[in-house]
């Protein structure tokens, strides 16, 4: 077999890649859209059509490709070690179908639209608390608090644990690591792994108790739907270990990804004031502007798959049992699909054809909520904070994860 193509210097958890992946996407799509990354023992798929093909073919590209960074050897807790491989992004049919069936009625556009007033009120409340300051850390003072409030309201889980939910989100995403036949896992200092696993154990205990409470007192909410889902024989369709992971990741997905979409769009509008002027002049452009933000920056670089057979894609033969990183965010930057792909254009006609919510059976369940929340948040920010813009020259710090984009801080200023 020919040697697999590689790209020298590629490092998906480096600050350089996380803060500006575009040069690497371009390099890959020009040189070898599909390549092997030996350091972490996985293949990378870039390019719109290559990603779509792989994402549609869920039988060849199984989602069972995640594992957890293990706790240190001296970790005494009994937290489930399989957080990562129970995740909704890491299971296949029929398990994936059972989970989606239980949850999907909460995520229809009609159900999501009922959240609009709460999103608007929450955004306005945060803006009112900020408006005389003239500057803030948009991620910590607006984006994360708003997204957390919205997802907690949506999931109907206790609001007094919001601080924990945010921390558990970072812990959960941080321990996700692609599987490896060679035993390679994402590097993490031992003390960090210990702290994250200690907190994840707390989250497991919390959601177990909450699930038991829902069993006793059913509500019209996603957790009740998960604990009461039945298979064809009338037995519980989703085991408790998976419910714990699902609840953790529903909170996590809701409070991380949309927050980062909002923050990165403020950055994009700061860099492209002409585009902001267009949406201000014609507010009907806001939904398409959100799509364009998703296209050009996304909220998750990519997700992992594992091959169930040898498969040829873009001239490379990926062997069976290989982990593959579908770099969804590169799909939005593919010049073959999007003209002048590097240009942020709020009037782009095919903006919504991005792959930032994935493609195929694993398309993001929460995408209607993310779209609604980002649009309302951005409208409210630009209505409430005159001349809002990101502070120039700041450095960006990202959480070193491969499945989500997590910007810690974004300094912004506005006229008072």
């Amino acid at each position, binding site marked *: 077999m020919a040697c697999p193509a590689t790209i020298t210097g590629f490092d998906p958890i480096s600050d350089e890649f996380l803060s500006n992946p575009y040069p690497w996407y371009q390099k890959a799509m020009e040189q070898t859209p599909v390549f092997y990354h030996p350091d972490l023992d996985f293949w990378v798929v870039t390019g719109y059509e290559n990603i779509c093909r792989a994402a549609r073919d869920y039988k060849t590209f199984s989602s069972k490709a995640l594992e957890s960074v293990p706790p240190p050897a001296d970790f005494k807790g009994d937290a489930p070690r399989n957080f990562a491989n129970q995740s909704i992004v890491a299971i296949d049919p029929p398990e994936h179908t059972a989970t989606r069936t239980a949850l999907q009625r909460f995520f229809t556009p009609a159900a999501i639209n009922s959240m609009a007033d709460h999103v608007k009120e929450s955004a306005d409340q945060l803006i009112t608390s900020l408006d005389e300051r003239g500057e803030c850390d948009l991620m910590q003072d607006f984006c994360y608090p708003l997204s957390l409030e919205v997802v907690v309201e949506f999931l109907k889980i206790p609001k007094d644990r919001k601080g924990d939910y945010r921390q558990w989100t970072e812990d959960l995403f941080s321990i996700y690591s692609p599987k490896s036949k060679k035993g390679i896992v994402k590097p993490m200092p031992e003390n960090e792994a210990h702290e994250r696993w200690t907190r994840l154990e707390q989250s497991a205990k919390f959601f177990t108790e909450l699930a038991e409470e829902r069993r006793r007192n059913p509500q019209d909410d996603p957790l009740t739907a998960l604990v009461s889902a039945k298979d064809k024989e009338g037995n519980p369709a989703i085991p408790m270990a998976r419910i714990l992971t699902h609840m953790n990741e529903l909170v996590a997905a809701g409070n991380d990804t949309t927050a980062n979409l909002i923050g990165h769009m403020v950055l994009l509008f700061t860099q492209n004031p002409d585009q902001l002027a267009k949406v201000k002049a014609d507010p009907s452009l806001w939904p398409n502007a959100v799509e364009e933000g998703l296209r050009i920056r996304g909220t998750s670089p990519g997700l992992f798959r594992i091959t169930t057979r040898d498969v040829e894609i873009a001239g490379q033969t990926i062997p069976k049992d290989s982990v593959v990183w579908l770099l969804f965010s590169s799909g939005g930057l593919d010049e073959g699909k999007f003209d002048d792909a590097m240009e942020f254009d709020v009037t782009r006609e095919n903006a919504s054809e991005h792959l930032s919510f994935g493609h195929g059976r694993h*398309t993001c369940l929460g995408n209607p909520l993310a779209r609604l929340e980002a649009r309302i948040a951005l409208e409210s920010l630009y209505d409430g904070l005159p001349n809002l813009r990101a502070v120039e020259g700041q450095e960006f710090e990202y959480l070193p994860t491969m499945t989500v984009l997590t910007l810690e801080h974004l300094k912004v200023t506005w006229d008072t």
Partner: protein
Amino acid sequence: MTVLSVTMRDGQSIFLEGLPPTSAMEVMRDNGVDELLALCGGCLSCASCHVFVRDDCLAKLPPRSTEEEELLSESPYMKENSRLSCQIQMTEELEALAITIAPEDD
């Protein structure tokens, strides 16, 4: 007025009338037909909104596209009258359409 008759997997039927000009998948989803998964939301990238179209209605629909054909061919339940309901537009010209939700793929 466009009318959609939907037969569920348990054999029960519902009738949906006065429909907006959207896809049959969206009509069913917006009317609470939970057993239709429609996982990808209608972007022609999965086959989880698979339905069978009653034979006398088939002629009213345009032929399947290559992509739709490819996705349906993955299903062990594919038949001549198989369609992805996200690709069926509920136009006025259609008048009435009768479909059955296909069995769930494993």
